[in-house]
């Protein structure tokens, strides 16, 4: 007896996320690559901008934060689906009795965790290096919300396109080309909100609320399109097939279904 869809989705998402994390913990490929990249970028930012006055670094810090997230996200998403591409395991999952949304949730979840690990280095690093980043220390909850919401939005849409390319045998280079334009809105929104946080702007809660709303929309789009992107949409004759199905069942039950 099949469990109800929400129960299946929750359980299978957790199982797949656990499997992703186990594989990552075994070879630490994504975490090491991403954290190393983050530290290098932080070092480069420090050497380039540390001598600037606070008023000059204030507009720069949000850009530094989200530019790094964009690059780390691109690296992470590319490698996350390379595992599936190399062994073609994505198809095995798609053919199995697995909620396809669970694959999306697990991939997005593991990518989000890697991004958050990087942000755990990046945000304190920026706060320590630049006086303009002091607000990150002063408002830790708002900073955490900002980082989580920004990364979640990026991952929600990025995972969809990364999966589409992996499933269709697309090239990694193509992912970078597609990823930056489609994630630009969420990154711009995060940038504006970060500036508001650093300025201690009273509109910050409202901006965070709007970011959360954008994330909900992006997650909805990702969840809705994930299966069609990987397998293709059901043909337009779905309704016709459903009518035929009902007629077949009625015939099997010994009664005539009205046409």
């Amino acid at each position, binding site marked *: *007896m*099949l*469990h109800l869809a929400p129960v*299946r989705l929750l*359980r*299978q998402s957790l*199982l*797949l996320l656990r*499997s992703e994390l186990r*594989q990552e913990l*075994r*070879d630490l490929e994504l975490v090491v690559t991403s954290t190393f990249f983050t530290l290098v970028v932080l070092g480069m930012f420090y050497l380039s901008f540390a001598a600037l006055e606070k008023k000059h670094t204030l507009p720069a810090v949000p850009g530094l934060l989200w530019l790094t997230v964009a690059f780390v996200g691109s690296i992470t998403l590319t490698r996350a689906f390379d*595992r599936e591409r*190399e*062994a*073609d*395991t994505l*198809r*095995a999952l*798609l*053919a*199995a*009795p*697995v*909620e396809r949304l669970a694959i999306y949730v697990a991939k997005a979840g593991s990518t989000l965790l890697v991004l958050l690990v990087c942000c755990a280095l990046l945000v304190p690093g920026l706060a320590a290096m630049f006086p303009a980043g002091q607000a990150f220390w002063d408002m830790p909850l708002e900073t955490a919300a900002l980082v989580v919401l920004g990364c979640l939005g990026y991952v929600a849409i990025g995972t969809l396109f990364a999966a589409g390319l992996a499933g269709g045998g697309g090239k990694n280079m193509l992912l970078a080309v597609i990823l930056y334009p489609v994630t630009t809105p969420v990154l711009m929104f995060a940038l504006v909100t970060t500036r508001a946080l650093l300025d201690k702007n009273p509109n910050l809660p409202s901006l965070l609320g709007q970011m959360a709303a954008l994330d909900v929309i992006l997650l909805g789009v990702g969840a809705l399109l994930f299966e069609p992107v990987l*397998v*293709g*949409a*059901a*043909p337009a*004759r*779905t309704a016709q*097939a*459903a009518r*035929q*199905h009902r007629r*077949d*069942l009625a015939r*099997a039950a010994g009664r005539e279904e009205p046409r």
Partner: protein
Amino acid sequence: MSGARQPITPIVLRSISQRFGRKVVLRGVDLELRARSITGLVGANGAGKTTLFLILAGLLQPDGGERRYGERVVADIDLELRARLAYVAHAPQLYPGLGARANLELFAELRRAAGLSSRPADDVLRGLGLPAEALDRPVSTFSRGMAQRVALARAVAGDPELLLLDEPFTALDARGRAQLAGALLAERDRGAAILLSSHDQGTLLRVCDRLVLLEAGAIVREVERGGDDPAGFAARASEVLGAVGLDDHAAA
């Protein structure tokens, strides 16, 4: 959940067509797969065999035609159907960093999370001739033949009603082919409908109840094993297999 207890066999494809861009890959394929029967799908490379497998497994939406699984005409191969079919692709599709047992257990856990049963991984793997010492070794260290056995074990662990096998004998030695053929016959006797593509003429002749020849995206010939004329089947099947120039492993 309608039809959950209805068998999904026979599986009937009607006028299935598929094109990729300008290239027409399948042209109005009609095919029926019955329970307790192994159907061999043969054809030259590029004839459309893998595309047909993908459509049956729900990994590709056909451009046209109808798929019927038992009483159900389906537009989407949903989870309920996927729970009752299994697909083994040309590549084993295993997580290379995981062991054979871990690969099977991951999919068994996913089945259980959906409320479905699965046979114990060790039993299935040993039944297909995987040595005990190999159960926990990473699959990346396996030969192609061993990996293929793990992929087949994963497929049969859920006792599927429809088993789709796209060139499962690739890279298997004679002993491996014989073991795999035995496993397929056991699955057939359990009641499964099996669609099998292979370039191994000997094994096809030995296990198949029916052979279907796919040429340029269309089924052009079918040969069925009659109860009282095994020699006639072998002769007609050899004609079909000869038409596509398959490898002769008849001694196997």
